């Protein structure tokens, strides 16, 4: 991650930002299998997204998001990283 990161604020830890994690290739494939979808049918996240940048997510990765759910306590969501 280049020099830009240093002056930029790290969004992680903010109350509005849930935990993001880049999935391994196998984990990503498992997600696609579980939901029987192609990557583009997942919700997307841009590679320029502040959090995506902070965790080093690259286009083609799948990011797992651990949300604090308003209804279920905790909920998992996935986003496919796209260029942008």
């Amino acid at each position, binding site marked *: 991650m280049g020099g830009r990161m240093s002056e930029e604020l790290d969004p992680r830890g903010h109350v509005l930002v849930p935990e993001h994690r880049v999935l391994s290739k196998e984990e990503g494939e498992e997600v696609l299998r579980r939901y029987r979808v192609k990557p*583009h*049918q997942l*919700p997307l996240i841009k590679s320029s997204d502040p959090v995506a940048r902070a965790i080093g997510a690259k286009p083609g990765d799948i990011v797992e998001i651990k949300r604090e*759910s308003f209804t*279920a306590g905790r*909920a*998992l*969501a996935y986003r496919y990283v796209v260029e942008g």
Partner: protein
Amino acid sequence: MRPQRVIESIRFSLLSPDEIRKMSVTSVVTADTYDEDGFPIERGLMDRRLGVVEPGLTCRTCGGGPKDCPGHFGHIELARPVIHVNYVETIFELLQSTCRKCGRILLKEEERERLLQEMEGKEEWWKVSEKAVQTAKGRQECPHCGEEQEEVKFEKPFTFMEGKGRLTPSDIRTRLERIRTEDLRLLGLDPSVRPEWMVLQVLLVPPVTVRPSITLETGVRSEDDLTHKLVDIIRINQRLAENMEAGAPHLIVEDLWELLQYHVATYFSNEISGVPPARHRSGRVLRTLGQRLKGKEGRFRGNLSGKRVDFSARAVISPDPCLKFDEVGVPEYVARVLTVRSRVTSFNLEEMRELVRRGTEQYPGAQWVISPDGKRYDLRYADREELAQKLEPGYVVERNLRDGDIVLFNRQPSLHRMSIMAHRVRVMPGHTFRLNLCVCPLYNADFDGDEMNLHVPQSEEAQVEAMILMAVQNQIISPRFGGPIIGGIQDHITGAYLLTRKETLLDREKACQLLMQAGVEPVLPEPAVVREGVEYWTGKQLFSVLLPKDLNLTYRAKICEGCSRCKEEECEKEAYVVIENGELKRGVIDAHAYKALDKCELWDRMVKEYGVERASEFLNHVTRLSIAAAEMLGFTTSIDDEDIPRIAKERIEEKIEDAKKKVRELIEAYNREELEPLPGRSLRETLEMRIMEALAEVRDRAGQVAEKHLTLSNPAVIMARTGARGSMLNLTQMAACVGQQSVRGERLNRGYVGRVLIHFKSEDLGAEARGFVSSSYKDGLKPLEFFFHAAGGREGLVDTAVRTAQSGYMQRRLINALQDLHVEYDGTVRDDRGVIVQFLYGEDGADPMRTDNGKAVRVDRLVEKIIGGGAK
């Protein structure tokens, strides 16, 4: 019936001249439509090969009559090519981004390759084309043949210039012809589309069915706007052809060509900027193709997304408290017209025969009989006895609507799904649709002239779906928040209150009478009181008859004043409700028991724990009981309910005087600049805020004084306090003081310079001068007060109107954006492309309608039920 086919997909494209000629049944050459005898002229715009609309005629192409002929296209060969106006912008971009000589896109080979690569496999490949076109536009020199490019200019509406010379549509067409197919995608076009087709050589003529002529009562035939436009096009086209043939001067030909361009352009769209719209002889602007599709009444929103239907009725509505809440009263004259398709089976054969015999003459009867081979018999004319004998399983009878049929009932604006529900029919005399009052809040209906629609589902499948998914009983819980939205309203509440308060005692006759009216068997419990040998029952006892025997519930009623120390069971106001084993022990029944959209503790519990069936039964009974009670015990309100004693009046006046004095003091302090400004506010703003505060306070104080005399012995107060209708604010405004009027949240201040009305001095900031109404509605407003009140009232009306428009549009947008989302079998929410929007609906998979006000599982209740107390 013709075999049904399903449209699987629709592909959009441009028509090539060849395709147009191929699909055309005739070329149209004469501008005349009918001859002297009124017959369509051959090769004219009404040629019989183009289809027929008038009954009795047959189509010369397909041989069908107006019912089965779909109409057929014709075409006009244009003497000179013209530009399709709707594509001028695209043509302009194409001219700018392709080589004037070789027609290649002005991109270097490597740019081309890179962009094509980028495009590969993309669903929205045209987004890349936009980039390609932008790059190509700037090129001065063709990278392929080296040709120097000249700047192309576009002058609205349809003139193109290159350098100094003008590009005629013919020139443009030849240039577009040179564009290579392999460049098309980069230019934003599908390879199946040839760009030169945007310059028209042949014009498609729509079938007459698309532009039917109408015959007025006078016998004069009036043509459709499109026909008028086509007539113009053919005329000019003819003249142009003749002049060209005769070798007329260049200028004349050019002029006619330009005119042809104008007519063809306005034929496609009559709202082109910079082009005077084509008009009818009367001066009316013609409605041509573009206008036909656009807008709320256009083809898309007016005819395709919303369609007219058969088997429907519309009438004024009126209330009927004796109906069950899932019924709808249908007047007989409506039931005589509406029909339901009934299949004849061995079980209903005799019944159907009888209906056929009665036919259209007697109600209930039938209108049509359809034999198994699909033949329809109209019972107005057929031999009914014979038909009745012929009837056997396999026939279908279209019988009149009758009691118990399932119909859909709807009131616009249909803002939520409860705006259209399935009811059971009750045929009755009269001219209006009748409905139970409990469903009024759902439809947002009242009876000041509201009308509603009724639809009769025809197939068994549709009826069953309606019954299961749309039945009123299944809409008691709102999907919006998971609480009851159907419930008691107004008199249901007052009646229940009158019945259940402690002073209500009823002898055997009255008690039985009430229960009978409620629709329950009058089995009375032990009398509560026996006085001088006469047995009396309390209203609470009667109410308890309707409750399930295992119900236990404690809550505070609406009338609870929120005393600082609640005496709970000892509450002498009967505001603490205790139900033990289905027995109403203490407290009164009011809005907090079963009013729709209120807290409705009792009702909520009934619906969620005893099921829809039991709850519906309860509601039907309890509403009738309440209304019967109100009738028996007597309930009325009149203007003297707002009377308060003279002393109270005087006290109110004193308070108002005090407040006015305080306002004057504030103003003086302001003038002396002694007023302490509130943080972040100017002095003037502070003054206004302080004055408003003081006047709002005095209104409340005046209200409090009045409220001391407005007790629960007063019917108007009963309505307000039990939550049946109205509020204490309404009452105190009537009895004590109306209070400050406002416009835009401020005291009134607009009008003359420094004053609202000439009756005041300029810059008078006093209470009266700025819209404080100290009179009560009962006493009547003084003239100036009346004026201020009207100003404030007007704002309210305008607000409502604006709000309806704004929220309507917001709703349309929301619906449009979200309507394709649905839950899949794996619990995910996806759109029509299969894109996952949520991985589990609502993150817990719970349907709000099946939750308890949003809570999917009531852990506390379950634990309490199984293990016992202490769960709270």
